[in-house]
């Protein structure tokens, strides 16, 4: 199937020369210093460091000591438009994405109204085409109204551009409905992207079940709420030879279920978020509502298991599950607060600081996992190869900063990493050939 067009606003194509940056594109086997010339939004030349002439049209950027990476792809963001623009919209959400080094994002359809019909999907796509700084792909809902009863018009939604389908925010509780969706997938394609939760187990819960939830008296959500559904739906996917992607895996048992499904040859994939990779239920102790997310932060043992899953490849990619909420909504007692944390602006730096610097994950592997979502959704994977559209991000791995110190690109500030000292800052993001983000303090060497 031909690559689908993602929606983004018209922006001038970039022409720039990045000198002497360290290029790292693990898939292309690129790892070393070079000059990179981008003209009219395409990578046209890669040469030995400081060999390309600066006498040409466009900006010249000093890349020495910095890394040029393929721009990241986030398969799971909530841009909140239409209907919840007090939390986020396409402009602010993609501003946050670009500031985090992302060159493409996939928006969830649990908006208001939910994207469950072709006209609604087209309308959202058009809005993104006016407002988005980085390309936005869309999923449509699996069920009408996302209420788990009847299938949406999946074929028509696919024709209108849906990359796939999800009832994210809610699980598909009915195995029968999911089976029908898998059967219908044969007709229309598109990834079925699943938020796994058994409501009969999670009901009344606000954090992961464990010693801390027992002590605090906060309703606990057991990890089996997720893992039993992963196991069930992997079997459904296998039975129907369908294609399923598991969202925000949070616990050891889910990783085990995904690994088992992959061993059996099922066409399944999985994602993990920076907060599940870096935080545990201990971080909920102070009842900071920014630490409330779904699935909830689990135990240290679960965290180690998902890190290992990401390293081994059982988990395919990183997703932020960027979930903005307004301050009023989050500034309430923990159990009343909506679930979710923002994540686009901190994902790379947080993972670099906490996983790469201590030597747990290799930088090349992190870059691979932060771009791998593209292929899972049949999108072109950002690369540094000559001839390709420029989807790149320039990062300074030495730069130290406090998350949120200069405010946020996002309209919301409910970031679980706020105030953390991070290493690694995105200086520039080029998405679909256009400059989507430029760090304020980052100056150009020259511009003509």
């Amino acid at each position: 199937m031909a690559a689908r067009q993602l929606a983004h606003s018209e922006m001038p194509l970039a022409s720039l020369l990045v000198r002497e940056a360290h290029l790292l594109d693990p898939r292309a086997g690129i790892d070393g210093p070079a000059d990179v010339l981008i003209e009219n939004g395409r990578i046209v030349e890669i040469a030995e460091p400081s060999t390309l002439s600066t006498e040409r049209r466009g900006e010249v950027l000093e890349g020495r000591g910095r890394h040029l990476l393929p721009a990241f792809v986030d398969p799971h963001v909530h841009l909140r438009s239409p209907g919840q623009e007090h939390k986020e919209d396409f402009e602010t959400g993609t501003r946050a994405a670009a500031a985090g080094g992302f060159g493409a994002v996939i928006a969830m359809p649990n908006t208001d109204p939910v994207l469950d019909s072709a006209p609604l999907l087209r309308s959202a796509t058009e809005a993104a085409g006016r407002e988005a700084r980085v390309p936005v792909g869309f999923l449509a809902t699996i069920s009408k109204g996302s209420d788990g009863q009847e299938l949406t018009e999946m074929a028509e939604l696919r024709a209108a551009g849906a990359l796939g389908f999800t009832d994210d925010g809610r699980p598909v509780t009915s195995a029968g409905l999911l089976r029908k969706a898998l059967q219908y997938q044969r007709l229309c394609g598109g990834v079925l992207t699943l938020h796994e939760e058994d409501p009969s187990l999670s009901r009344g819960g606000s954090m992961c079940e464990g010693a801390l939830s027992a002590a605090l008296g906060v309703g606990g959500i057991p990890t089996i709420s997720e893992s039993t559904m992963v196991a069930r739906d992997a079997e459904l996917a296998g039975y129907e030879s369908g294609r399923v992607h598991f969202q925000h895996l949070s616990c050891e048992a889910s990783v085990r279920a995904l690994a088992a499904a992959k061993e059996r040859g099922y066409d399944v994939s999985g994602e993990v978020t920076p907060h599940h990779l870096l935080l545990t239920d201990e971080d909920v102790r102070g009842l900071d509502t920014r630490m409330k997310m779904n699935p909830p932060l689990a135990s240290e043992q679960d965290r180690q298991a998902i890190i290992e899953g990401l390293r081994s490849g059982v988990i395919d990619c990183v997703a932020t599950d960027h979930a903005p909420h307004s301050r009023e909504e989050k500034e309430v007692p923990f159990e009343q607060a909506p679930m979710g944390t923002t994540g686009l602006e901190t994902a790379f730096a947080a993972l670099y600081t906490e996983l790469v610097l201590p030597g747990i994950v290799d930088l090349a592997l992190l870059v691979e996992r932060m771009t791998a979502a593209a292929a899972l959704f049949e999108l072109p994977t950002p690369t540094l190869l000559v001839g390709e559209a420029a989807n790149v991000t320039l990062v300074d791995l030495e730069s130290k900063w406090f998350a949120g110190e200069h405010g946020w690109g996002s309209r919301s500030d409910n970031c679980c990493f706020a105030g953390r000292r991070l290493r690694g800052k995105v200086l520039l993001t080029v998405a679909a050939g256009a400059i989507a983000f430029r760090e304020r303090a980052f100056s150009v060497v020259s511009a003509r």
Partner: protein
Amino acid sequence: MRHLLSISELERADIERIVEQAARFAEVSDREIKKVPALRGRMVLNLFYEASTRTRSSFELAAKRLSADVVNFASGGSSVEKGESLKDTVLTLGAHKPDAIVIRTPWVGAAALVAGWTGAAIVNAGDGKHEHPTQALLDVYTLRQKLGALDGASIWIVGDVAHSRVARSNILAFSRMGANVTVAGPPTLIPREIGALGCEVRFSLDEIAQADVVYALRMQHERMSEAWVPSLREYAAAFQINRRRVSARQLVMHPGPVNRGVELSGEVVDSPRTLITAQVQAGVVVRMAVLYELLSGARTFSPVPEPQLA
């Protein structure tokens, strides 16, 4: 002490200081004029988002016996019903500059949250299923009156631990005071890993004879959204504290209100070995001691801290 938010942040010495102060106040309650001028001119705001009879009335009585002014606020019939948020309500009522806010809500951590929004001293009168620290303090007080000390005593807390803030505060308070705490009840009403609070866990009452004190919990119908036990009849058959299960040697406690014939049999409720009435009496003097602890002496009205969400 600035606030009383939970037992978990108290040391044994704090608990002892408060219950000893309560003992001194007990003498006041026996006078003909049941009032001392300790907190004259102070204002105590009772902010109750949940139904309460004994807790609210005993806080009101405690404040009045200390000569403080009391303002009662119940969420029913207020702007809360018009959709005002907890924060806005607290900021609005805080404009009257109360010296203390006694707050009960159905939400874990709400008292601590409110402490960040106002300069008043906050007393947690129950935050969801988390804690009810003044209940635990009055239970410690009651037991000390009866036993002298709690050190080495075996205390069984029986019933619906999962939905009980009293259980959480009391496990912590009794263990801080040197007692050995066991919780017992049907597995659906005992949270996994509750033992991390420092108690033993049993799923039957077979060994309840070893208890010096049996603390029965109320079956919290109001906090249960589904059936946690097949029937109250079956629950009572296995876990009711009745004459068959406890001897005259053992003390029986209950935080009230009692479901007669469910967690306690009627004859146990009415028997002289139960401390239920003593607990209620202790409620006033212990809350006097808590308000006195927080409000006596020079207090500077501290500035409102920055909102937590940066």
